[in-house]
């Protein structure tokens, strides 16, 4: 290596002290940003817990299984069973409507639409996400409700023997109807994320399927869908998270049940979600103990959303091993 001395040292490979400092600063700021996010989430959780615990200790009913909600008595009795039921059923129903439709729309945009339609179609679906949720609430209550009501009546009339479709006297916002409105609201989320993953399907996968004589649908089933599955799962879970926490549209629409009314498993019943119960009763936050009861409900919603996202993470990570 006698020649090496003659060759000038490559400047790009040596780090100047200044470059080194910039590297370190960037590493620290990236680390700091990550830690800050984690700290914020932890602090929110701790805050909710800290505010909720005194009320939970004063609570005379079982918090998770009771259907009561009486904060004004000397011994408050409150439980979130009803809220949990309404929130989860409405959101899952919304997901059942929106995920298949959203996946089909994403497939349409990436695989079927002619080139000139692709970009406008994607933009139009994204536009659904730009509609404010209060507009969804107004539109749902005033315009969509009269259209869906006869459908509900028909289902309740025809399939009423099934507990989920049992007829109820509720004529306003039912869980069923909330699910329909929520489905429209989460459709753009499902579509946008599914579209991204479908568009990322490696061209050789698709071309190989077509070259082997697959029809377009067979190509989608054998190449596009398996590749996009983790993305679709995370899209569904993100959408579920949005549906669980949606507040103002639900508060507008849903028919609040009278306290003490009997529980039915019917989708045609009214009810309140966590978010709508809290929003409806904002005027009651006048004592720490009452506020704490609502914060406890919020804590359950927080944990619920957190768990849904964690499950999505696990599913996505596990499926990834098979698709890549």
């Amino acid at each position, binding site marked *: 290596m006698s020649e090496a001395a003659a060759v000038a040292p490559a400047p790009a490979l040596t780090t100047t002290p200044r470059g080194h400092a910039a590297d370190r600063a960037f590493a620290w700021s990236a680390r700091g940003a990550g830690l800050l996010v984690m700290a914020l989430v932890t602090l929110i959780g701790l805050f909710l817990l800290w505010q909720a615990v005194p009320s939970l200790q004063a609570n005379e009913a079982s918090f998770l299984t009771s259907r009561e909600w009486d904060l004004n008595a000397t011994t408050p009795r409150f439980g979130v069973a009803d809220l949990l039921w309404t929130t989860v059923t409405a959101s899952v129903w919304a997901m059942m409507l929106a995920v298949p*439709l*959203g996946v*089909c*729309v994403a*497939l*349409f*945009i990436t*695989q*079927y*639409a002619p080139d000139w339609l692709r970009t406008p*179609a994607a933009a*139009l*679906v994204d*536009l*659904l996400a730009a*509609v404010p949720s209060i*507009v*969804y609430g107004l*539109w749902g209550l005033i*315009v*969509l409700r009269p259209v869906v009501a006869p459908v509900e009546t028909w289902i309740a009339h025809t399939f009423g023997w099934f507990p989920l479709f049992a007829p109820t006297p509720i004529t306003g916002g039912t869980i069923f109807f909330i699910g329909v409105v929520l489905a*429209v609201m989460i*459709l753009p989320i499902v*579509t946008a994320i599914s579209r991204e993953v479908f568009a990322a399907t490696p061209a050789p996968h698709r071309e190989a399927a077509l070259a082997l*004589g697959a*029809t*377009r*649908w*067979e190509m*989608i089933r054998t190449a596009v869908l398996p590749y996009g599955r983790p993305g679709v799962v995370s899209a569904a879970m993100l959408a579920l998270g949005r549906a669980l926490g949606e507040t103002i549209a639900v508060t507008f629409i849903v028919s609040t049940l009278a306290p003490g009314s009997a529980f039915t498993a019917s989708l045609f019943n009214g009810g309140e979600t966590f978010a709508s119960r809290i929003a409806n009763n904002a005027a009651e936050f006048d004592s720490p103990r009452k506020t704490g009861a609502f914060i406890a409900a919020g804590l359950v919603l927080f944990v619920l959303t957190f768990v849904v996202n964690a499950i999505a993470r696990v599913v996505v990570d596990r499926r990834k091993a098979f698709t890549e």
Partner: protein
Amino acid sequence: MTTAAQTQLPGFHLAATPAAPALTDAEGTVDTAPDLTPGSALRRRRDRTATIVMWSSFALAMVPLAWILLTVTRNGIQLLTASSW
């Protein structure tokens, strides 16, 4: 590049590959034309159904958007244009 060199490349057994057996039909005549007939009726029907489903799901997704835009515009425009402020 000689043919011999090519056959020596690992993974390329060009010379060793037997010629594809000629496709013959019932009469024994050699059929050299590739089979480019479309798939079976069932497969074609499935493909067509999928196409229809995709197009109609997009149309269905556009319904609420158009509906909301129409409602908001129709109910809002006269208030915006007729107001005295």
